[in-house]
C-alpha cells in the first residue's frame, strides 16, 4: 500500500506518512497557517499528482503558491470556482479547469472526475508520467465556502462522494474548514466523513497543530510553522 509522506517527521518516521485512501479535515481558525499547512500536505512529491479545488483563491494564486514550494507544475491541477464569474469565456485546459461558482457542485464533480481520469490515462503532465497507479493528493480550499452556499445535508452527501472517490483511487484528501464560523453539529457531521482531523489553533500569535486519527501518532498540541512549503514542528 502506498504511503503519502507528509513532510512532518513525527508522522513520516513512525508511520510512513498518510495511508493511501484516507481523508483529513484541516480544522482551523481564520488567519492561521492552515492554508499553508494544507497546501504543503498536498504538495506532490516526485511521481505524485495533486488536485486543488479552490473556492477562495484564483487558479493563478494557487499556482503561485505551489511555485513557491518548488513543485513541478505539470503534476498539479486546479479547479477554480472563482475566475469564471468575471471571465465567463475562459476555457479549460488539462490542468486548469473552471466552474461557474462554488455553488456548482455538478461542475465541481465533473471536473474532479475529469482530472482524475486524465491522470490515470497518463494524459495529465505533458507527456511526462509519474508513478502508476498514480498517487493523487487532493485539497479542498475550502469546505467553509462550499458550506456558505449549500445546505449541510446536501454538502454532506457531496463530500461523501468526493471522499469516497479519494478512497477508491487510493489518494489522500485534505479539506479545510474554518472552525469558528460553524456550529458543533456541522463540524461533527463533516468529521464523520474523515479518517482523521488535523486541528490548528493560535495562541499568542503562535500556530499549534495536533493530529487526531492516525494510529500511534500522539495527538498533543505542537508548535509549527510552514517554510517554503515545508512544515516545521517545534519552536
Amino acid at each position, binding site marked *: 500500500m502506498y504511503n503519502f509522506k507528509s513532510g512532518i517527521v513525527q508522522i513520516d518516521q513512525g508511520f510512513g506518512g498518510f495511508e493511501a485512501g484516507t481523508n483529513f479535515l484541516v480544522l482551523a481558525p481564520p488567519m492561521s497557517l492552515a492554508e499553508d499547512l494544507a497546501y504543503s500536505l498536498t504538495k506532490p512529491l516526485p511521481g505524485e499528482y495533486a488536485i486543488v479545488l479552490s473556492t477562495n483563491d484564483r487558479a493563478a494564486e494557487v499556482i503561485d503558491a505551489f511555485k513557491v514550494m518548488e513543485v513541478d507544475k505539470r503534476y498539479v491541477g486546479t479547479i477554480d470556482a472563482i475566475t469564471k464569474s468575471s471571465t465567463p469565456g475562459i476555457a479549460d485546459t488539462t490542468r486548469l479547469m473552471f466552474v*461557474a461558482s462554488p455553488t456548482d457542485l455538478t461542475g465541481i464533480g465533473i471536473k474532479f472526475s475529469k482530472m482524475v481520469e486524465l491522470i*490515470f490515462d497518463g494524459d495529465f503532465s505533458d507527456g511526462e508520467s509519474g508513478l502508476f*497507479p498514480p498517487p493523487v493528493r487532493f485539497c479542498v480550499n475550502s469546505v467553509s465556502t462550499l458550506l456558505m452556499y449549500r445546505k449541510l445535508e*446536501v454538502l454532506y452527501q*457531496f463530500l461523501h*462522494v468526493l471522499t469516497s472517490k479519494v478512497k477508491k483511487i487510493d489518494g489522500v484528501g485534505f479539506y479545510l474548514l474554518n472552525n469558528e464560523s460553524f456550529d458543533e453539529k456541522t463540524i461533527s457531521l463533516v468529521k464523520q466523513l474523515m479518517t482523521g482531523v488535523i486541528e490548528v489553533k493560535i495562541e499568542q500569535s503562535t500556530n499549534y497543530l495536533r493530529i487526531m486519527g492516525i494510529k500511534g501518532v500522539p495527538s498533543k498540541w505542537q508548535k509549527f510553522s510552514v517554510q517554503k512549503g515545508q512544515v516545521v514542528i517545534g519552536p
Partner: protein
Amino acid sequence: MISTGINGIDDMLGGGIPRGSRVMYSMEPGVDGQLFMISTLFAALSKGLSCLVVLPHTTFDIFKHDAAMKRGCTMEIFNKKVVFIDAVDRERIEKSSRTRKDVLKAWETKVKKLSKENAVEIAFIYVDLLYNDLGLEGTISIAEAAKTSGTTTLILEHLNLEGRSLIDQFIEKYSYDLIIAISSAFRSQLHFNYFTLMHTSWSNVPRRSVPFIATEGRVVPYIPKIVVTGPTQAGKSTFVTNASDLGFSIDRRGVAGDPTTVAMDFGWLHWKNFEITVYGTPGQQRFDSVVPMLLSHAMGIVLLIDATKPSALERARHHVQLIREKRLPMVIAANKSDLPGTMSDSEIRKGLDLQKDVPLFFISATRKGDVRLVLESLVDYITQYTN
C-alpha cells in the same frame, strides 16, 4: 414529438419525447452528463421552439459560453427564441423575499410570467440549487409553473446525490414521463459512462443501459463489447457460441483437423440492462495482428486458457501483458475443467504472473451456465459502483 438531440435515444423512445411530457436527466455526481440537457436544448433551439432556461447556479452569460464550448460551436444559436432566469435573478428573489414561502412564490410568479409572455414550448430547469433552497416539493411546483399550456414540455437536470429513492419519487409521486439516469462505472483503471432509460410513461420500453462517449460536443451511444481471448484451442469459439444463441464464428479447418478461428467469433447477450456483444479473437500466433484491434474499446476481457495445458501458459502470458498495457478489466477462465489433470489455482496464477485480485474461474465452455457465470461476474466487476 420533441427530439432529445441524441441520435439513438430518440429511436429508443419511439421517435422522441411527446409534447407536454415531464422529463428528468438524473446525474450521478462526477459523471459528465451535462451534454444530455444541452443536446436537447440545442435541438429545440435549432427547430425554432420557444425555450425557457432556468439556471439558478450560474449566469446566462457563463452558461452560453460553456454550452457553446461543450458543443464546439458559436453562441449564435442563442439568438433564437430563448429566455433565461439565472443566478442574478435568484439573488434578487432572495433579497426581496422575507420567508421561504415568499421565495417560492416569487420563483413561481417569475417562471409563470416569462413562460406565458414568450409562449414557452420547452422549459429547461437546472434543479440543483432550487432543490437546495426550496426542497423537492418547491422545485416541482416551480417547474409546474412553467407549464402554461398542456403541451409545454419540462426538462429537468438534477445532480442526484440520493440515488434510486429520488428517482422513484419522480416516477411514482410526481408522475414524470421520462427518466434517464446518467452514471459511470469507475474501477480505478477503467472509466466509462452509461445512461439508463429508467422509466418511460408513454411506451413500455424495457429498462436499458447503454454506454456512451461524449465526443465533439455530441453524446454518442455505443454497444459495449466483451472480448474473449487466449491461446489457440483454449475453447474461445466454444465459449462465445455458448455465450449467446446468436453466436457464430468464422472457422476454417486447421492442419490437425481442428477448426480454428481465422477472423473472429461473434455473439450477443443481454445482462443487467446492458446489451453486450461478445467477440472471440483467433488464438493462433499468425493472427496476432488483429488482436489489438479487437481489444480496442472493449469494456472487459475474458482470458480463456486450457486448464489441462501448462505448456500454453507462456503464450497466455503474452495475452495478459497485452491486456494490462491497455488497462482493461480482466477475468480468467480456466477451461476444460471437466477433463482430468487440470492445473491448480496457484499454478495458474504463478504461471500467468497474476495478482490475487484478478478473478479466476474453473469452467467448462461447453456448459452454458459456466459461460454465463464468467460473463456476469465480469459485467458486475466492471459496473459495480461502490461508494
